[in-house]
């Protein structure tokens, strides 16, 4: 892919000198995060290629901390003059905000970094010809239709994003980081006897090798299988039942129900775990972490967008709440260490506390052991989406599930939601299975972010099933 004549990144020297020139003398901290992103996106719907898009965009985000308040501005210019102008605007914004500050914001100290970080992948998506990407997507669309005559409509989307980012701070950090994402999405609609239903499949990786293990026919089989299962499925019963959450569902539970309330900005705002650090909030079986170190996950980062090293942050260790996810500001406020969770969608927005790879640690129970002794319950195999409120009310929409009857998998049930209160549900987690599998997804906390989540299958003593039967 050729950039549109924008193939330069401003040298970090230019950014540093722009920051020095623009920064208000009263400011205690300033940063410029410059980016250039090249992307290819395409959607194929029912065999028709919706426009192929190839683009490059660039810009810089500037944050200034002045008298305990933040100012932010963003510019599409990477030239010194434009960056200085934007940085001055950020200073003016910070000065305006500082008029009303009651409790000044501070940021935790971190070591400054001077480094250039490359993402290691087998196949850089930029090295793959666009015709190959198109062919793969068209093949996937065809494979879905070829899988079964009940398939009525298929939408498949592909995107790759390659970002070069330079972060310079007034403290002296100069960090050049590459970010690579390859993402593929399929949505299949199936119809039988007037009954219409649908299923989704979402996969990702940092390199184009994603498609080595996800050939069009493999993905097609998987997603069409989910849709057909729903056609023969019956509605689930509504009420409280023992459930085994599949790997895919455990991840979204870890992310939505547990992760969000452990993001320190949300904890400070009064989330359900406020004041509970060091306390037991779950059974011994529960260990949950958010890690930047699982290299295959979407959340694998060497440094976050504040230049803080990524790490494995333990949230719950054998039932005890041991940590929260921090940026530099919440770390200072709570006398904790920044955990490398500050991430920004792009140069249009400031970084927020975001998850990376959030997961349940596996244990050693076999899948059969997890089903054992459940007289009537559900195995929740794959999800449609999830959402949580600060008070710990979570919901996960399930697209595929099976009845568990006398310790064995039974008939499929469809389209149900599970919900509950995170803390109450964590106390009901009885056992974790084997193997850690990551899910590739997108989270919207005001901004869009690629992240991963996962875990082994997990057995929960009781959970509210929003079935329609």
């Amino acid at each position: 892919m050729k950039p549109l004549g924008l193939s330069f990144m401003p040298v970090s020297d230019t950014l540093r000198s722009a920051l020095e020139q623009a920064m208000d003398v009263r400011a205690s901290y300033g940063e410029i995060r410059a980016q250039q992103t090249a992307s290819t996106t395409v959607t194929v719907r029912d065999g028709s290629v919706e426009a192929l898009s190839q683009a490059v965009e660039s810009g810089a985000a500037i944050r200034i901390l002045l008298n305990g308040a933040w100012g932010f501005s963003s510019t599409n210019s990477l030239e010194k003059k434009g960056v200085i102008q934007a940085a001055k605007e950020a200073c003016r914004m910070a000065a305006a905000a500082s008029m009303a500050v009651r409790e000044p914001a501070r940021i935790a100290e971190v070591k400054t970094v001077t480094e250039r970080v490359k993402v290691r992948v087998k196949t850089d998506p930029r090295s793959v010809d666009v015709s190959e990407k198109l062919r793969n997507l068209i093949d996937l669309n065809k494979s879905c239709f070829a899988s079964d005559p009940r398939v009525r409509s298929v939408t498949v989307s592909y995107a790759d994003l390659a970002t070069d980012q330079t972060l310079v701070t007034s403290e002296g950090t100069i960090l050049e980081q590459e970010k690579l994402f390859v993402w593929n999405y399929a949505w299949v609609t199936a119809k039988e006897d007037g009954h219409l239903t649908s299923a989704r499949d979402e996969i990702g990786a940092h390199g184009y090798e994603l498609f080595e293990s996800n050939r069009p026919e493999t993905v097609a089989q998987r997603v069409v299988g989910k849709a057909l299962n729903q056609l023969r499925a019956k509605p689930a019963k509504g009420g409280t039942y023992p459930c085994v959450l599949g790997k895919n569902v455990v991840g979204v539970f870890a992310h939505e129900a547990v992760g969000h309330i452990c993001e320190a900005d949300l904890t400070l705002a009064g989330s359900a775990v406020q004041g509970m650090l060091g306390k037991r909030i779950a059974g011994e079986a529960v260990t949950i972490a958010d890690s930047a170190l699982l290299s295959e996950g979407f959340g694998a980062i060497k440094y976050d967008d504040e230049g803080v090293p990524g790490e494995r942050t333990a949230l719950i260790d054998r039932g005890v709440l041991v940590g929260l996810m921090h940026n530099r500001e919440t770390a200072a406020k709570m006398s904790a260490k920044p955990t490398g969770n500050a991430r920004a969608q792009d140069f249009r927005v400031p970084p927020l506390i975001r998850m990376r790879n959030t997961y349940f640690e596996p244990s050693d129970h076999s899948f059969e052991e997890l089903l054992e002794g459940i007289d009537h319950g559900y195995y929740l195999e794959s999800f449609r989406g999830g959402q949580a409120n600060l008070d710990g009310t979570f919901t996960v929409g399930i697209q595929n599930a099976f009845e568990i009857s006398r310790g064995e998998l039974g008939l499929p049930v469809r389209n149900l939601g599970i919900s509950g209160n995170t803390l109450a549900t964590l106390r009901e987690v009885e056992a974790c299975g084997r193997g850690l599998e990551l899910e590739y997804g997108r989270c919207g906390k005001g901004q869009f972010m690629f992240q991963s989540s996962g875990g082994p299958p997990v057995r929960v003593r009781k959970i509210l099933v929003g079935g329609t039967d």
Partner: protein
Amino acid sequence: MTQPLEVCETALKTALRLGASEAEAAVLGGTAVSVDVERGQVKTSSRVTDVGLSVRAILQGRIGFAYSNRLTLQQAAQVAKAAAKAAQASVRDEKWSSLPDPGAIPSMEGTFDPAITRVTAEEMVEMVTAMADSAAQFDRRVLPAFGEASASTHQLAIVNSCGIEAEDAGTVFALSLGAMARSGSRVSPLCSEVELSRRFEPNPNRVGLEAARLAVSSLNAGPTEPGSFPVLFDQRALQALLGFTVVSSLRGDMVHRGRSAYAGKLGELIASEHLSLSDDGTLSGGLLSGRVDMEGVPKRRTPLIVRGELESFLYDNYWGRVGGRGSTGNAARGGGPLRSPGYATLPRIEPTNMVVEAGVLSEEELIEEVKNGYYVRDVQGAHQSNPESGEFSVVAVPAFRIVDGEVRHSVPGAMVVGNAYDLVRRIRALGKESRQVGFLVAPKVVFDDVRVVAA
């Protein structure tokens, strides 16, 4: 700065010169000044301008797309070149007919308020402080967790090779506050109030008080009785539930791709006779009103459901031509799976202001009408609904139990389940006061026989 229309013309000419049979160029985006509060105090003030150029180039049914966030004439030519190149690499779309033709553009009032372009960060700092303070002062158990004031201006300039040349601009001023209340070990959900307006008429105290009231009233929790009940839905809950189901099935692309529950049902009774629904892109003061849509097609009013009968679907240019009914001016840009800015995405069908005809009852009368049931202010998990089947299974939060025609207590964890296509057939009553939440302009609505599930 180079004029947006000049940038568009340069891109259009370049694409046609490079062999495109048709082309379209649009400059769109805007500026937003915002101030946010966290935990009751001002945290960040920001100013962001994000305007870009997007170009569609069509070469014998092959469609190429490119964009840039740099608006020089030189860059315009580069983007056009990239779009033409992408078209060459793409595959012919057999259904492609052509770009839209020009139409008579309505005159619009009330979509642009110069006062919104002039409001300063300093004034907004005062506003959000007042908003957070009025929430905190309402009750000492309230924490104004997150809030924001934002003044945004958006613009569009668009030209195409069929003769469209249009410009539009608009403003929106927004205030929002999410508050929580805590009492001992009891925590309310995050309860929000949002005020959006095309004119500058902010009322920060009202927003703060509303959020605080809802949070405090949520603290008084009681048991959920499972079963089927009449349920009163607030506009926010309605917007979420209908948005992912009924609205999806009213989209022309869903209809023609066999993904809509309403395909082939024009003229049939698909909803209660109490329901009349239209899409109105020219609604005075509507948040999504404007002169033209994102393809330069004039916005208009389209009746969709008239007294329960299905009248029409929503179209952009592409699906309007495929369906043989023409565009209804419902092309939107922006968002999508990667939450991209408008100039970085292709047009797709979205409602503008979707207006539900109001009824005659006050809020008190609606609650009396329910008598024994629930009042759902918002729902969580609506995006997990199955748009094709209409099945939903959501948490009602905040939600309240109604007994003997009175709101008694909140019902944490209650779920509401069902099928949206059946639900709209069971409307018992509509309120007389409408309010816009997102695309939906509607009163509060009472539905019969709504299934409530509880732990």
